[in-house]
């Protein structure tokens, strides 16, 4: 029996200049929507309107960046909406409590508390899912109920308004601009950039994608699924906290209905953005585009007078389905 070495086969080191439709899809959809909007109502493209819409989409975008981690690591989080309400509540209560002593400094202190609370909430979700080995859908449906109940309890069924003296000082976090760009937009871009950096440029990002793509392979490669997925939930929690921080000045209060149904919007943004729900690959910038798309659709509905008020939800549904269809079949 015999054999020897083969010649060191030289391989073509071809880059693929193929246009990646899945990746480009959400951005194309965005362009199409902008064009349609302009046709329907030229005001649509006004700087004020666009900046309003994008600012508004910031909450969902920030939370959805976190969701991109969770989903790409193979999880799911239905609790983000009520977690946002809960964190908003905690933050406002703490700020109000501190204001007599530290005045305006209670704002940064409150923000720090918000982040800690977010991390804690994420940790709870993560541990239940990973250590408890419970289907993420059910586990986070459970914590969704828990967070929602807690905010209802904390607000005694009513609202938790932020202290009047803090209002003006806090306002700029939502309403302020830097170089003409609203602060929430900048914050969400920063969060997305950081998210993209972590997901694409760090070891953790790799591990996250591996855990979502094939749990066994990841495990056999020395990656702790528990650790990886738990961190993803913690990142999600931190993102929710950042969103909550930006949210407070917009509405000035936490209520039992804050953030209701955000989870569905968040997941929709992630999926429209091109991340597969079954895990593996995450697309942070697609997610951000997805969040903006959702807000744009809603905005278009308000600005146009074509459809009955009652049918807005239907048109949104149809547009989302069509967008996904185009994405599928343009490949």
């Amino acid at each position, binding site marked *: 029996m015999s054999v020897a070495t083969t010649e060191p086969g030289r391989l073509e080191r071809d880059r693929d200049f193929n246009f990646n439709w899945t990746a480009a899809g959400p951005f194309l959809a965005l362009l199409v929507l902008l064009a349609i909007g302009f046709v329907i109502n030229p005001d649509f493209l006004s700087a004020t*309107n666009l900046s309003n819409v994008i600012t508004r989409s910031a909450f969902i975008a920030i939370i959805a960046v976190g969701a991109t981690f969770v989903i790409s690591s193979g999880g799911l989080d239905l609790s983000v909406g009520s977690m946002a309400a809960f964190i908003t509540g905690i933050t406002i209560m703490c700020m109000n409590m501190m204001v007599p002593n530290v005045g305006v400094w209670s704002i940064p202190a409150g923000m720090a508390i918000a982040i800690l609370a977010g991390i804690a909430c994420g940790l709870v979700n993560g541990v239940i899912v990973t250590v408890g080995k419970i289907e993420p859908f059910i586990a986070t449906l459970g914590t969704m109920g828990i967070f929602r109940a807690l905010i209802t309890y904390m607000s005694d069924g009513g609202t938790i308004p932020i202290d009047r003296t803090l209002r003006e000082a806090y306002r700029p976090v939502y309403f302020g601009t830097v170089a003409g760009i609203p602060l929430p937009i900048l914050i969400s871009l920063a969060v997305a950039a950081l998210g993209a950096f972590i997901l694409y440029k760090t070891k953790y990002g790799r591990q996250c994608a591996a855990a979502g793509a094939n749990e066994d392979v990841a495990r056999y490669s020395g990656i702790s699924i528990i650790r990886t997925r738990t961190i993803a939930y913690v990142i999600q929690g931190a993102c929710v906290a950042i969103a909550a921080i930006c949210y407070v000045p917009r*509405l000035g209060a936490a209520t039992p*209905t804050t953030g209701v149904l955000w989870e569905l919007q968040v997941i929709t943004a992630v999926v429209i953005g091109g991340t597969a729900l079954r895990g593996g690959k995450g697309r942070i910038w697609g997610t951000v585009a997805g969040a903006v798309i959702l*807000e744009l659709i*809603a905005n278009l509905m308000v600005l146009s007078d074509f459809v009955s*008020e*009652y049918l807005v*939800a239907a048109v949104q549904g149809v547009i989302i389905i069509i967008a996904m269809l185009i994405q599928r079949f343009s490949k």
Partner: protein
Amino acid sequence: ADKKVVAVSIPAADHGWTSGIVYHAQAAAKEINAAFPNVEVVVKTSPSAAAQVSALEDLSAGRKLDALVILPHTSEELTMPVKAVKEGGTFITVVDRGLNDPAIQDLYLAGDNIAVGKNTAKFLVDKLGGKGNLVVLRGIPTVIDDERIQGFKDGIAGSDLKILDIQYANWNSDDAFKLMQDYLAKYPQIDAVWANDDDMLLGVLEAIKQSSRTEIKYALGGNGMKEIIKKVIDGDAMTPVETPYPPSMIKTAIYMTVANLIGQAPIRGVVKLDAPLITKDNAAEYYFPDSPF
């Protein structure tokens, strides 16, 4: 040439009463747009407080609003955004669920929620001879709900009427049906039920009917739903009274706002609709069989 723009921002139809609001707002818009060529009334519904804030931004981003009629989803969250609209020189009319800062509104129109609770309670104290067991179904966590419960508690204060239980049924008949079934299972002796909204009362009545329990003397609601008013007119033993809280208040508010804009009839201030007890005697005044609510 230059039309006056009146924006109407209301919650989407998420239960019977709000669907009445939507109905009346749209009717008013249609009538006014037809009658006054120089006025344009735009109605937008929003499914949540956040969406309503967005809608306000959208409505005022493109054009200048001459007036805004708003039924805020929640008080706290809409206060600042409405203030922002006001600062653009818009006349503000607030309906039902108020804002936190009354200085913002030019006109406020609402029902009397304290009275809704109190008048119902007084009726029960009177009819039950000041003693008995009650169960209460409340709506969703809002100021209005709190006020009604408060009014009710005030109303029975000093009597021996006892509230066995108060729980949320979300102003939803289905949830109310379940909750009432459970109340019935839990308490062997219930003398009267109060649901602070007629949607819920419908569910309560179904549950009582199914249980064939006979000790329950009264099941009362509130809001003036036409089905319930009909019962009052028919002399129903279990639901002989009702309190009004008509969703048509939105229409009144829109008309008043338009009158202020073009009718050379300056209107400012607070309008509070009474919530007297509706009984067989006066029920006909509150009965509108063709309205959706």
